[in-house]
């Protein structure tokens, strides 16, 4: 089991070192929210801020989400768990941030909990990785010997469904949507300003929380995240009406991996699959 206290201490130590050196003006980590169980994303900007940093099993936020909030910072240090580091890799691939402008404080953590249910997060709802793929400093020990779960295992049940049943399932799920856009806010890959759904010219979809607009918003969002979603599962955890968005994102990620042979955010030198092509891609993928 991960020693969260030890990671918190090393996070504080590294943050202090970085802020003192004055090379890094911002350290992105977590701070206490209104109670222990609800930490919040936190940007430490001075040595005095370091004391506020916490790390516990409820620190699920994908901190890659906040990197682009600090365009003026010369360098940003960011605490990154496995999924966060993949998100950072995608941001670097998309040239949203440069690798040399980041100090990635990698965290190997298992046993994260969802504050909503106080249960361990089901590893099938996330990418199933415990160790960051890219980091400068690794806090805590690399996790070995954990059971490796295929991130796509959970899909089998839905893929086996009859088409009509699947439509009924997604319609009932997406009809619940209240269009709070918490999924968009939680997602490290959703950085467009404005988002297509906020555009008025053209108005892509109805903004009322009704079936047609919901369908358009979600289907398009699934498409926009194709080959970029790094499977952190934050969208589904952020959702106040518990729509299992991770299922659809996983399915699209699986198809992309099968068709184009590459999972999102694993290697710095890759390109996201939809901004890339191979002449040898088969026409069969369109059938």
């Amino acid at each position, binding site marked *: 089991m991960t020693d969260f206290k030890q990671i918190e201490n090393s996070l504080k130590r590294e943050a202090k070192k970085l802020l003192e050196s004055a090379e890094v003006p911002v350290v992105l980590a977590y701070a206490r929210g209104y109670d222990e169980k609800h930490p919040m994303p936190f940007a430490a900007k001075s040595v005095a801020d370091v004391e506020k940093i916490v790390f516990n099993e409820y620190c699920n936020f994908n901190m890659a989400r906040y990197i682009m909030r600090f365009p003026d910072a010369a360098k940003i240090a960011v605490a990154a768990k496995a999924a966060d580091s993949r998100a950072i890799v995608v941001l670097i691939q998309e040239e949203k941030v440069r690798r040399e402008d980041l100090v990635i404080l990698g965290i190997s953590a298992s046993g994260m909990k969802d504050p909503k249910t106080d249960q361990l997060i089901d590893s099938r709802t996330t990418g199933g990785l415990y160790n960051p793929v890219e980091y400068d400093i690794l806090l805590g020990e690399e996790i070995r010997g954990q059971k490796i779960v295929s991130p796509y295992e959970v899909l089998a049940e*839905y*893929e086996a*469904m009859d*088409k*009509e*049943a*699947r*439509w*009924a*399932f*997604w*319609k009932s799920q997406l009809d619940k949507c209240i269009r709070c856009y918490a999924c968009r806010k939680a997602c490290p890959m959703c950085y467009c300003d404005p988002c*297509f759904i906020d555009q008025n010219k053209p108005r*892509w*979809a109805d903004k*009322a929380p*009704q079936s*047609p607009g919901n*369908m*358009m918003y979600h*289907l*398009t969002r*699934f*498409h926009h995240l*194709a*080959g970029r979603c790094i499977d952190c599962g934050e969208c589904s955890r952020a959702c106040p009406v518990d729509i299992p968005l991770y299922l*659809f994102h996983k*399915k*699209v990620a699986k*198809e*992309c991996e099968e*068709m*184009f042979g590459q999972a999102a955010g694993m290697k710095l030198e890759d390109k996201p*699959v*939809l*901004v*890339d*092509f*191979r*002449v040898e*891609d088969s*026409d069969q*993928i*369109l059938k």
Partner: protein
Amino acid sequence: MSFEPKILGIACNWCTYTGADLAGTTRLHYPQNLRVVRVMCSSRINPSFIFRAFQLGADGVLVGGCHPGDCHYNTGNLYARRRLAVTKKILEFAGLEPERFRVEWISASEGNKFAEVVTEFTARIKELGPQQKLKIDELLEKI
């Protein structure tokens, strides 16, 4: 009255649209269910166009582009191929009918292929019947 589907055709200016012209000038017959929109390249097609077309009452969407390797802009259709393949998978997993969405590479000299594809696709859509799942209820649209 028999069901006459509405089919949206999105055709690339350099190949498929010219191919459609050729089909016309060579007096080939094909069903009149297709409404063609011309775009400069198949990679111009935003996947939202396809979802939106289904919402606004299209029974089928046919996308036409240059053969891979023949793109007027060299690589446009190669990007489009990957993108539209993902669109198809999304339609499938959402439980919609992916058969209602078809991508064909039709060059400017393939007027007869254009006519054939449209005939075949229209027949297929007629078999499938009206597209109801995504179509927006007209009353709701007026609110």
